[in-house]
């Protein structure tokens, strides 16, 4: 088991390195391969009528004139040890992990991420708890009462959940409970540290609309997994032992039926941690997703790259956790 863990962690670190290289290449190599000059790349960070001196300074600051491998080295070094930028009037130290420095907002990316991450995390974690509980329990009940009214109803609603986009459910909920009909919520983010009760209360609408989307999918996956597992030979063996049905379902059925869900959950959750882009804009939350959108609309490369890298990091870490959990659950994984 220990060897397995070490192997997986090593692979994860390697993967992160590859991801950083690819991200770097996309943002710094691709534009040049497409024929963009370093001057025009640097011009993006300056005002509308670029002063050649300023552009030169930007090129120097970003290191665009250096060979690519050197640039990548600085980039990695910044991540690990921090970097210094001196642009215009205010020189800035960007401490490790340095995800770059936005010359548009004159701020380092990392402190922004730190500030916004709690909003996205609150959104993701709360929604995940809700959708896991509702989705899995609905799926189990549907599978056990297959073909019943309950099953049809649940699957009908979940089909809606899968097909209705976030910007519909979210906006509909807002219209119903915040703006037009009942004025129950005034949805805005309140820090958990400042006021936990208000934090939870204000997050209910975003949680519910996000969880609706995912629990629908999870209900369907759980139902399918459960139906498949309950047809397995070892379930018949468990019944042949004379176990009560409840034990057959919980001890022998559920464990195998839910194992594949772990993989999917790891991916979904990691992606959400990197920013629930649509949910955040629907509810005007200034989380990582909103930050990424800001970066994209402003053509602010360091921001986009920072969020991308962070998301990649979450995905790699969540995948690693999934692998470890898998090994703990399924003994067959440990050997191979």
């Amino acid at each position: 088991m220990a060897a397995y863990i070490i192997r997986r962690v090593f692979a994860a670190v390697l993967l992160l390195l590859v991801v950083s290289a690819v991200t770097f290449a996309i943002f710094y190599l691709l534009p040049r391969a497409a024929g963009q000059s370093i001057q025009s790349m640097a011009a993006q960070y300056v005002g509308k009528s670029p002063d050649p001196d300023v552009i030169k300074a930007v090129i120097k600051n970003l290191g665009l004139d250096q060979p690519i491998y050197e640039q990548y080295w600085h980039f990695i070094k910044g991540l690990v040890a921090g970097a210094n930028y001196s642009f215009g009037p205010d020189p800035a130290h960007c401490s490790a992990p340095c995800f770059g420095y936005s010359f548009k907002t004159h701020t380092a990316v990392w402190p922004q991420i730190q500030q916004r991450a709690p909003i996205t995390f609150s959104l993701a974690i709360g929604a995940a708890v809700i959708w896991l509980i509702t989705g899995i329990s609905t799926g189990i009940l549907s599978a056990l009462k297959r073909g019943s009214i309950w099953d049809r109803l649940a699957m009908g609603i979940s089909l809606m959940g899968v097909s209705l986009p976030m910007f519909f459910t979210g906006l509909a909920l807002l219209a119903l409970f915040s703006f037009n009909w009942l004025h129950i919520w005034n949805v805005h983010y309140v820090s958990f540290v400042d006021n936990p009760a208000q934090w939870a209360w204000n997050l209910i609408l975003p949680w519910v609309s996000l969880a609706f989307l995912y629990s629908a999918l999870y209900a369907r996956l759980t139902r399918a997994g459960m139906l498949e597992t309950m047809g397995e030979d070892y379930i018949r063996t468990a019944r042949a032992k004379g176990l009560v049905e409840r034990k057959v379902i919980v001890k022998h059925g559920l464990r195998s039926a839910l194992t594949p869900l772990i993989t999917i959950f790891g991916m979904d959750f990691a992606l959400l941690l990197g920013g629930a882009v649509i949910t955040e804009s629907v509810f005007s939350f200034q989380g990582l997703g909103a930050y990424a959108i800001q970066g994209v609309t402003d053509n602010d490369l360091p921001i986009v790259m920072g969020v991308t890298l962070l998301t990649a990091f979450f995905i790699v870490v969540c995948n690693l956790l999934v692998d470890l959990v898998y090994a703990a659950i399924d003994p067959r994984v440990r050997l191979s």
Partner: protein
Amino acid sequence: MSDDTHKDAATKDASAAAKDTAAKDSAGKGAAGKAEGAREFLSVRDLRIHFDTDDGLVKSVDGVSFDLKAGQTLGIVGESGSGKSVTSLGIMGLHTSDRARISGEIWLDGEELIGADKQRVRELRGQKMAMIFQDPLSALHPYYTVGAQIVEAYRVHNKADKKTARKRAVEMLDRVGIPEPARRFNDFPHQFSGGMRQRAMIAMALVNNPQLLIADEPTTALDVTVQAQILDLIRDLQKEFGSAVVMITHDLGVVAEIADRLLVMYAGRCIERGTSEQVFEHPQHPYTWGLLGSMPRIDREQTDRLVPVKGAPPSLINVPSGCAFHPRCPYADVPPDNVTRTERPELRETTGGHFSACHMTREQREKIWTEEIAPKL
């Protein structure tokens, strides 16, 4: 229309046969030889298991009756889809689908199982009757150790603490011939070889000393050398525990060694039934002849080729009219008036306790058997 009449005829036929056996068994025990005076431990009467499917009613088991005494072995033989496994799962009460329609009677040690309280049947499962399945790898849960699964089987029916249960499980693993049982207790099924897995399954089935053991093709997934070992093990354990065994197989070679009585099934019905000796020495049904002809034998001439039974097993939704075997039967035209295609043959007694369902007269069958079939075997 014709379906209804068939059904009626079938019901009469089966119940008549059932009475017949019962009378025979109580009157002429001497003929059976073994276990005189012992009452039937398992009695199945006119068992029907039908499934309501979208394509129609599947008559997987359609009027099967048999008896089994304690300490005896019954072999149920037939091709895939003949209803052997469905019968055995019916006895265990393991048909959970709400589409299964089960009727008839199953008496286990004087207790009627069909229509009995589900809770009661569950208590009997694993304790009084246990089952071994075909593929031990898929029948064992991949996430739990072999030991834990045996312990679980024991603790369902015994108020034992974990230590006692563990001791018992190790004892059983040892009994079924698993080396270093205390260490292997902690292994997962995938760490066992095929034969060892089946041994572990047997240990699990026998952990509560069941009086009835149903083995559903217990050797099919194993290689030939291991097959013999497993059969020997089942036979030894049967002697030791005195339990009744139902051995389900498509391989006559398997039951030849182990079964006291035989029941040959075709398309959900019993087409021949008798003692092992009767069925092997004087088989009465063309399908049984076919099975014997397709069985490899060590004493057979090398040059002879095995003769498979022609054609494929019938669909259980549209069972052929008359004798279900007639489309594949080389002697379908021997009886007059096309009777094999229009009338379902009744299960009739040939000699003491030996029944078969064939339209041919006894003389005709005797002639074909001695002149055409037996010399080639």
